């Protein structure tokens, strides 16, 4: 992340030849969480840690814990609602932002 930001902040005259992006994962600087109208809220009490939401998230914005518990990374979640739909125990609810 720090590597990413240092590259993006450089003067264009120092950009490497060939128009390449010389460091990985600089898209982390682009917080797509602002796209969201509905936000997924996980009911941890209901969660069975099946990882369905984790595997199907297109961002990926579902964080997988060591114990396979899950959390939403709201910095990037676009609020598509796939996680809520694939949850077999309906532990995720989409609620309006704001």
């Amino acid at each position, binding site marked *: 992340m720090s590597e990413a930001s240092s590259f993006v902040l450089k003067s*264009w005259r120092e950009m*490497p*030849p*060939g*128009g*390449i*992006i*010389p460091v*990985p994962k600089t898209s982390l600087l682009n917080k797509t969480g602002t796209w969201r109208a509905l936000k997924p809220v996980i009911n941890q009490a209901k969660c069975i840690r099946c990882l369905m939401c984790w595997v199907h998230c297109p961002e990926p914005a579902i964080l997988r814990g060591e114990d396979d518990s899950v959390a939403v990374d709201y910095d990037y979640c676009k609020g598509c609602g796939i996680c809520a739909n694939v949850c077999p125990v309906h532990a995720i609810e989409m609620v309006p932002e704001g």
Partner: protein
Amino acid sequence: MKGKLVGMNGDRAVAYAAKQAKVDVISAYPITPQTIIVETLAEYVNNGELDAAFIPVESEHTALSAAVGASLAGARVFTATSSQGLALMYEILWIAAGLRAPIVMAIGNRALSPNINIHCSHDDAYAARDTGWLQFFAENVQEAYDLTLMAFRVAEDERVLLPTIVNLDGFILTHALEGLYVLEDAEVDAFLPKRKPINPIDPKNPKTYGPLDFTDWYMEHKRLQFEVYQKVGGVVREVFDEYEKLTGRHYQPVKTFNVEGADKAIVILGSSAGTARFAARKLAEKGMKLGVVSLTQYRPFPVAELRKVLESFDVVAVLDRSVSFGSPGNQLFMDVSTALYSSKKRPILVNVVYGLGGRDFTPLHVERIYAALEEVQRKGEAPEESLWVGLREG
């Protein structure tokens, strides 16, 4: 002359140079008159004389696409094509240059269709002139060999990092055998050590090559690429000098003959330069003085050098082996005109078209051009139209 004297045609000489350059990857598709280059390299690889990957691709578009991929991976890459093949590569030419992939490509210059023709025109080289590739023109088989070796040095120089074309006239050089001096392998190794790539593809150091580049950064990237071309001339001269020390063979971006004290000259590319000099000698016997100026370096265009040479003439014929349809002049003519426009003293320029589709260019044509230059000089004004030499009468 240093080196071992051998007899080879232009295509084989280029392939031999690529072999001595120890290229890692050859990605190429056959097309006359370049085919012998590809065949010879395939032979070298399959006989164990060259340790390289030969990718027998299914089209020129793929030939260059694979070449760019291989070059980004850090390999020394060579390919060759002609005419329609180069046209098919066109999209990727820009990308190879923009991604700064120092591929070396030989072009056996050939006319573009229609009608289909396998012989020499410079349509193909000219069509690549804006793409960002460096371009050299060989005048004979020796130059085709020498320039191929030097092309790798220039292309891979970290101040340059640009793909480079070596042009050799289709059939007139590709299929013609001449004597040439070749270096020992060890000498080439010293002149052209293993490529040291900048930012090659490396899984331990992941980078993104060829991203989307929108309104916010594209222009800056083009500016950065643009600035490189200002430095290429200096690198080319360094490489020419070093090569001269090694071989005794002198190269310069603009080659001149008989220019001292002459008021008429012709500017020309490729194998016809020799024919023009031959004719100029004949003219000199009759007391007529014609300077011959040929360009070894075509891109980047050697503006300053050419200006210095041409400013002193009254009339200059610029010879194009191609037609730029609907343009204010043909391709080399437009280059030369632009280069001279801001000069304080500039000659009257006459655009001459010659040799299309392999139409032979002979000393008689040079004499006709000389006569035309005399007339222009007398009238003091440039003709409205280009002069076509070698066109059928009637």
